[in-house]
Structure formats: C-alpha cells, structure tokens
C-alpha cells in the first residue's frame, strides 16, 4: 500500500504517496518529473542517479523513497544558485567540454559537489578516486577531471 512521504526537494517541502518498493530515483522522476536524475543501471554501479541527500551524494536508485522521509534532497535541477546562475561546477563542465551525451553529467556534477564540499582542494588523484564510482562511456573522463579541478580552483577564489 502506498505510504505518505514528506521530503524537501530542492528547497521546497513536498508530499507524495509512494509504494514501499519505489526507489527515490523513480519517485523523483515519475512523481515529480525531475528527469535530470538519470537511471542507467538501477543497481548502484554507475552513479548516474546521484542526488544529494542531506548534503551527501547518494545513489537514488538504491534508496527507497520512504526512507527519504523528512530528509533534504537536492537534484541537478536544484543546483543553480538563488539568483538562477549556474553553479561553478556546471559552468566548468560547459567550458571544459566535460559533457558529451550528457547522461552521466548530472550524477557527475552532484558527486563532484559532494566531493568538493568535503575536500575543497583535491588533487587530480583524489578527484579520480573520489569520482571513480561514476561511469561515463563517452568522455574518457579527462575533461571531467579537468572541469572539477577548475571548478575547485574557482570556488576557492583562484580564477582560472
């Protein structure tokens, strides 16, 4: 039987009735139309469905929606600043050609956000290690790593 779940999505209090087996990814997509959260493997292996749950990057395909009760979810749609401007990571992914087909991109950006929140000045190796749970089939990762490093510098005030 469907259960009532209240959660904060991208700063707005929301309510939804979800079957107990529905994943958070499924609910974000099908019930809230937040298609930026991608489902690619549905087994937690690729990171395309990554969202921030209470600020930490999680795989929303592995979390039941009912378990998100009362928690804060940020999806790619909620990453832009209050002024509507792009997050430095979004800007860097554009400028450094870190986007190809784009299907891994939201998960990559949110994983990078979580990584930089914990470690604002990572080395390239730390970025690669920290993001190795996110698969991309198009880019070979070089430009994604470059973009994360550039965003990190920009967020620390070192413009480049």
């Amino acid at each position, binding site marked *: 039987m469907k259960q009532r779940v209240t959660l904060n999505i991208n700063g707005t209090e929301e309510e939804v009735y979800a*079957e107990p087996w529905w994943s958070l990814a499924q609910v974000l*997509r*099908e*019930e809230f*139309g*937040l*298609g*930026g*959260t*991608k*489902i*690619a*493997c*549905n*087994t937690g*292996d*690729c990171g*395309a469905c990554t969202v921030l749950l209470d600020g930490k990057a999680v795989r929303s395909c592995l979390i039941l929606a009912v378990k998100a009760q009362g928690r804060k979810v940020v*999806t*790619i*749609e909620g*990453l*832009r600043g209050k002024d509507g401007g*792009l997050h430095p990571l*979004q*800007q860097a*992914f*554009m*400028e450094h*050609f870190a*986007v*190809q*087909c*784009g*299907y*891994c*991109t*939201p998960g990559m*950006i949110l994983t990078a956000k979580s990584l930089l929140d914990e470690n604002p000045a990572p080395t*390239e*190796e730390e*970025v*690669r*290690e920290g*993001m*190795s*749970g*996110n*698969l*991309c*089939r*198009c*880019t*070979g*990762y*070089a*430009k*994604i*790593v*470059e973009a994360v490093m550039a965003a990190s510098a920009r967020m620390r005030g070192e413009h480049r």
Partner: protein
Amino acid sequence: MSELSVVGKNVIRLDALEKVTGTALYAADEALGEPGMLHGKVLWSPHAHARIISIDISRAKKVPGVEAVLTGKDVPEARVGSCVDDQHMLAREKVRFVGDAVAVVAARTLEAAEEALALIKVKYEVLPAVFDAEEAMRPDCPVVLHPGLSGYKRNMYPYLGNDLPGPNVHTHHKVRRGNVEEGFRQADLIVENRFSTARISHCQLEPASSVARPNVDGTLVISTSTKSVYTGVQAEVCRFFGLPPSKVRGVTHYIGGNFGSAPRAHIFAALAAIRTGRPVKVVFSREECFFRDLNRLPMVIYLKDGVKKDGTLVARQIKLICNCGAYAQITPLVIRNGSFGSSQYRIPNFRWDAYGVYTNEPPSGAFRGFGNAQPFWAMEQHMDIIAEKLRMDPVELRQKNLIAEGEENLRGEKTHSMGAAECLDKVAQWIGWGRPTSQPSSNTVKVAKGFALANKYTQVDTIASALVRFNKDGFVDVFHGSDEIGQGSQTVLAQIAAEELGVPVEKIKVIWGDSARVPYDHGAISSRTTMFVGNAIRAACQDVKRLICATASPVMGAAPEDLEARGGQIYFRSNPSKSMPVSDLFLPGRATCLPHDAELLGQGTFFYKGYSDGDPETGQGTRLTASYCYTAHAVEVAVDTETGEVKVLRFCSATDVGRAINPKLCEAQSEGGIAQGIGSALYEEMLLDRGRVLNCNFHDYGMPRMTELPGNHDLKCFLVEANHREGPFGAKGMGEGAMTPSAPAIANAIYNATGVRLMDLPMSPERLLRALKAQNKEAGHKSGPL
C-alpha cells in the same frame, strides 16, 4: 582558408547548458508519470535454441491493468531483417538465443506488466544449440539455426556472396587483389597466426527507451533512444510492420550515448501501441540492454603475411569467421566494411574471406569502428611481429608500407587526405619511442611502450539533406536529420553554417530529431555527420545566400551576381563599403521585397555520384568509401607479472581529422575512444555460458572507470589535418577511428614488456598469467611464443 572565423574554434557545445542543468530531454525522460501511458515489458526466451510448443497467456491477461498480451501470432507473418529477412519480431516457431522475444505485455502500471509476464506459460522443446562460430560454420554442423535460409530474402547487399560453405553461413565476403600464392612465393618471411576478439557491449548509459503514440489519423509517432531518426526509427518500424513512411513519424531526443548500438525497444513499443491503440512506453533494464543490443561482432581471424627482407609487404591473406549470433541483423555490412581498414598499406597481393555465421548467441551488429577494430587487432600485431623478425624499427616498417597520397589502394580507390604518416610520427615522438620508459621495470613489474596505426572509413552510399531559414531578426534555423548522440554534431554543424553565412554561431539554431519536421538524413552512423550533413548545410547556406541576393537585386539596383550576402548584410561586390541589412528585405511596404513575415529558405543535398558497392567477386571498385580517418595510438604500460594486471601509464593518440571544425570536440572524441579502446583491450567481454550472458550489469562487466585511465598529464591527443577536398572546409569524420588502434597498441606494449604475445581479447589478468606461465615453462627454449 586563413580567414575562417568560426571553423577551427572551440565553440562551447550548444547542448551543454541543457545537459549541465538536467533539462536535456532523452527518450527515457519522455512521458514521465504521464497518465494513460501504458508500460510495455517483453518476455525473453530462457533457452538458446528451442521449439515453442505452446504459449498460455490466459492468466496473464486477467491481471488487473493489463491491456494486451501479444505473442508470435500477433506479429506479421513475413520475416524481416536488415540484410537477411530471418526474424520475426516475436518468435513464431522457434527461439534461437537466450533473449529472443516471445511475448509483449502492455499494462497500466509497470508492476502489472511484470506480474503478467511472470504468468505467461511457455512450453518449449529444447533443441541442441551451437555457440562456437568455427563449429557452426562446418558443412556438417548438426545444429542448423535457419533451415529455410536458402529461401530467405537477402536484402540490399550484393556482397553477401553466394558460395556459402555451410548451412549456418549467411555471408561470404571476398576481396581479391593480385595473386597471394605468388606473393607468398616471393616473400622472404611468412608470418601466420590466429587471433580472436571478444563480444563486447556498447554500455551507453541511457537504457534503450521508446514511446510509441498512435495518432487518431492512423499515424504512429515513435520516439526512441536509437540513433538515426529516418533509417534507425522510421524506416525500421515501416519494415517491421509493413507500413508506408507517411504513417510513421520518427522522433529522437538527445541520445544518451550510442557507439553503434541498436537495441530496438521501439519495435516492441510500436507493436503494443498498434495493437492497443494506446500510447506505450518501453524501457529496457540494463540486463536487457546487454543481451538485446547488437554487441560488437566477435571474430576469429587467421592472418598470413608475406614480406621481403627489406620489410616490403608482398602478400596478405586473411580469413575471418564472425560469430553473428542468432540473426544476421546488420552483420553482413559490418563484415564487408571491416575490410576497408586493410587498405592503409601497399599490399600487391591480397586475399580476404570473411564469413558471417549464425550461432545460438545474442546477435551482433555495429560497434564504434564497424568491423574494423577486429582485423586491426590482428594486422597491427603482425606489423610488430614482422618488424621484430626482420630486426626493423616498427615505426619504420609501417612508414615504409604506408600508401601515399594519390596512390591506388588495394581496393582500387585513389588515396586522398592521407595523414597517417604524420599521426605515426606524432605519437612516436610524444611517447618517446626508442627512449627509456617513464619509470624503470622492476623484477615483477615490467614497463614498456607499444603503438599501432589504424583507420576508419566513412560510408559513401548515403545521402544528407538540409534546410536553412534566414529569419528577419538575423537568426538562422538549420534543419537536418542527423542525431545528437553525444558527439557534438549540433555544435559542429552550427559552426559550419555560421562560417558559410558569416554570422556569429550564437545566431544559429539547429533543429533535428523529427522525421515530420526535418529533411532526410541517413543518421549518426559511420562517422559521417560532419562530412555529409556539413556539406548539405553548406550547400543550403549557399542556396539561401543566392536567394537573398536575388531578392535584394531590384531593391539595390544591381544584378544578383554583383551582390554578396555575408554576416546578415548584402554588399555590392564592386563596393563593399555599401551594404543593406538582410532584415531590410522584410520591411513592410517595400513592394519589390519580401512580404512581411515571408521566409528566406535555402536547401541543400549532399551525396556521392559514381560510387560503387564493389565487385562481388573481388571487392574492387573506384569509389567504395567517402573518406578515411587515420589514428595512431602509442602507450606505455606497466605489467605486473605476479597478478597479470596491466596498468596503462601513458597514452597518446594522433588522429587525422581532415580539418578540426571544433578541436576540443575532436579531442573529446579521441579521449573517449581511448577509454573504450582500453576497455576493449583489457577488461571488456560479455561472458557467455551456453548462450546466456553472465555479466549483464555494470558491476561485473568491466567498463573503465576514472582510476583506470592515465592522469591528464600522461594523456595527449594530437589532431592532424590532412584536408579532404570533399569535406566541409576540409573536414572528415573521426569519431570511430578514435578507438580502432588501441587494443593492438596495448598488446604490442605488453609484448615489449614481457615477451608474451596475446592473441585473444580481452587481455585479462587470467590470460596474461596463463601466457606468462607457458613462457616460463618454455624458459629453456630461446625463442618466444612465436
């Protein structure tokens, strides 16, 4: 070409903003939570080969919410296929692989569809099956997949061949040049080996997805994650259902990666939508993507080369046995086009026999490189083997045999836009060929370099059309029918239009992905979009400029040929300081001008005249391909001889792109190709147990992750620009060439590190350890494994 202002610039991708904000729409994102949408699920065969005795759908139909349960009885009786009509979209009598489609359920919820699927009872009589292509190819193979093959319609391609050696062989493609027996007699050295490649999966991140919507007027609107809105969507649905193109509207959104994949969720969505009259969405699970997508065609390759002492290649004989799986699909074309790669060297005597064989494995198809990476796996290792035996430098051996600009290649084509020599030099220099490795070898970790040279042709027999609309606000709409599969084609095409029209690229809007709204194109295949669609768009831009000048002629009091349209202005050729804005042509009240809100439309089409399919007996022809993109890869690897693990330390590529319309996008393709190349070389293989895929998920299938690639300082991608006279601004396709040489380059490096020559893909730790063990056993013998 020095005054180019947009071509050659790193214009930021037009789709980047949508993609970084999560607003880009993909087929899987269509109809999210849409009320009234039915969900389709497919029942797959659990057997590799079986006769269907009966199917009981009575319980499945009773599940609440189920709208349709369809089986082989509900599909057209005629078989269909890409090259051979050998398949029913739902099995009618027999299933031929684990994953053959048996039934489709459409229901109001996914849960109901899944419940109904589980209640379908199919009785099978399990039949003996064959999985090995060499076994299946034998004339006396007891298992025959398609006993009716001789009566099947074999479409489109005359090069399927007629002298088929066994009942499971659907294709025999031949190339003949000179006389190989005579060539081998002249040779001072003959090298002969057997190689094999693995079945690998595209693993594009977007799962196969499709939404089919029947319109009240009888038209089916079908969107899908498959590339090629005309050929891959519209034409295919028409072929499967016997519908005219006017009744099928193909739609594509952004596509979440492709690499040649064709999983065809749209066929099942279309079937359920036609039978129910309701919109139906089908999304494959990742597991389904693995066995339903047409994986990279595995080949067994017997290669025999003859060379003179000085390194001159005199003869090459190559026999390929291709495990096509249960249905031919597009494999006859993959097999035929896989032969083009060999034309990069001057080989006077050449013989190629490639066989397409049915087995009870999941069907194969196109994969980045379209049949070329597999022969290169063998051919580019042979070049190193030959060089070592002749004590020649392998770079020099390749340079010596490379075909030259203007020279006739072994297929009879005149070579043009030949940047291979420069590619080789660039990678050899960067990797430091002949110089010490970046780190020394230890007792257990051996470090060495290796390289390979390969190419990828672009198909010649396709057509592209484009429309260009010059709007009164100075913006330009470009309409074309190729797809955005991630390669960045929309950006490149906008740059071509901007350059031709002399307007800023920000003023170009590119419209694509709907067969009802954009002109015909063959699609995002064969690395063709930049060249074919780029040329069509250029022609359309030239057409609209002619129209602008003709319209302005009476207003400006000059003959059209004395005017020039550029950058939104119309200039007098004799006095470029005098001009009129194009937007003035739209001003109301000017009787001689355009009526208000009228349009300035230009059209263009590009195709090759006088190309040929090649002689079916010899494969010879004067124009078989549009262009060749050459790529050299050089790597440095560290091989742990205790664990068998190979780490790629440094990687360099050089790709001849003709001209880089957007260098960063070319570089991005090169980097992606390297990652797939490393994956195919070291990790990737669909593991099959009697036809069943064992590792059909991203956990067990070894796609490279960030940590498996060299760091950014140890990675370099060069672009070489051997301008192509027929390409837009000299450009040619390059997306597929990006991975063709990776696996042999890594194999050559592993050999140089360990003395072990691996001939089967992937070069997994298990294989490498086994080979090292065998090498140790032979330690008494002086020679290596060859």
